[in-house]
């Protein structure tokens, strides 16, 4: 494996913050090592010339899928709230935000 570090410690911590994940010191070391080898393998893609190639975000030729705007059954509030870890009245309850 190359000595080159694909992902720096700062990068990894930044990405963990974006992903709302926290790692212990040992987990972070392990994660960086494994991500490094995976990302190195992914460098393979840089070898292909893709100039002028359109991106594929979706394989089916479907665009603007519409259906009639008619009222139908929706999930009753009680059922939608049934799995809530905490609730108050008809709402999901969360700890204070600031």
């Amino acid at each position: 494996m190359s000595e080159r570090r694909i992902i720096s410690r700062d990068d990894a911590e930044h990405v963990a913050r974006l992903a709302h994940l926290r790692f212990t010191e040992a987990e972070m070391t392990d994660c960086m090592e494994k991500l490094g080898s995976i990302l190195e393998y992914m460098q393979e893609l840089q070898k292909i010339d893709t100039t002028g190639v359109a991106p594929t975000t979706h394989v089916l030729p479907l665009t603007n899928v519409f259906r009639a705007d008619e009222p139908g059954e929706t999930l009753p509030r009680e059922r939608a709230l049934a799995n809530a870890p905490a609730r108050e009245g008809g709402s999901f309850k969360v700890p204070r935000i600031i």
Partner: protein
Amino acid sequence: MITELTVKQMAAALAAGEFSAEEAVAAHLQRIETLDAKLNAYITVTAEQALAAARASDARRARGENLSPLDGVPMALKDIICTDGVATTCASRMLEHYLPPYNATCWQRLADAGAVLLGKLNMDEFAMGSSTETSAFGVTRNPHDRERVPGGSSGGSAAAVAADMAVYALGTDTGGSVRQPAHFCGVVGIKPTYGRISRFGVVPYASSLDQVGILAKDCWDAAAVLETIAGQDKMDSTSAPAAVGPYAAACAEDIRGLRIGLVKEFISDAIAPPIRQALQAAAEKLAGLGAEVEEVSLPHSSYALPAYYILATAEASSNLARYDGVRYGLRAEADNLHEMIVATRSLGFGAEVKRRIMLGTYALSSGYYDAYYNKTLQVRTLIKQDYDEVFQAGFSCLLTPTAPTTAFRLGELCDDPLTMYMQDICTVPVNLAGLPALVVPVGQQEGLPIGLQLIGCSFGEEALFAVGTKLECARIRPALA
């Protein structure tokens, strides 16, 4: 024995009154009770509901109603498919106690046809893995050798069908998660065309690649199940309006004159010799039946694996952002919202899921987005074009290996994610191109099954069933004490 029967055989026996649906379900529950402590294919067994559903099926039959061949036949679902009021865990601590308030469309359509649910099957956590070892509820063992993995991520589904603990099962396939376990466990597995089966109520991993699949004892059974669950669904705007089937009838179609391609890039030293030999023998068999077997080239194949792991993880990082402890699932208590979300996700996700979220978040992050994500979408176009050209040239399907090896040992690849990802080298291009693929068992090597993959053109499932039926060998039954 009742549990050895296929759907077709059981439907005939039920129609002839040889036994009742209740007896069929009881026999399967008994087998699960006896065997599953050793295999761990099931996360949840719904014994009471299954017996009640079987009695309802028997009552329909007694009234002389016109019944689907699936009516009264016991089956099971990968635990990623939402079942109203029955825990759907995704094999994750995050959803350990989640009770969906609705049914996935694929399960609803089976239930409407009278299918009887035995329970929910083990898998890699959030379908992220190739061995079922990342499950938060313990590994599933391969019925052919309990020291080996069943494959993944639909490992519980493949193991349950292989061990006669369900007549058939549904799984999901994002990069090979139905097909590689079918190969490892000696059962039939189909991943239909993207959009063929509604994804509504199927917990998403990578939405542009995910598709529901079927694991069954033979091609006809898989075809009959596909015919029942395929088709457009108003709840999934990516479900396709294309006409459905007939798939079961296609199994009997002649294959004389069909052009079948052998993909040169998939026949390398990376593929174990017994699998290459099986491929050669299968090609000769098809040629003997009048098919025209020719070598074809898909030049961008080697880029499919890195492209898949960038796109799948990028989509996963976005899809899994929903697990924040607010509306359902695990919540770790904390004194402010941000801390609660971070603590919940750090506690609820396992190591592989976190690794993939990190990878996907990195690929989508500012500064890397163009180099990784956008570049990969362009590469996806090139990979898809390779397939388009081959099918436009008149090929009905392509015959390839399913994975580089037969089932590997438990723990063998756990600490080496990159080598684990290599398991998917023959299967991921199919998801990137959105095509259907069928894996059928063709033989075994030292007691371990070998299944080969047939890749079809978009919505070309009929040709896969016609060719697959000619290739599949007699069922490989594990010797289970």
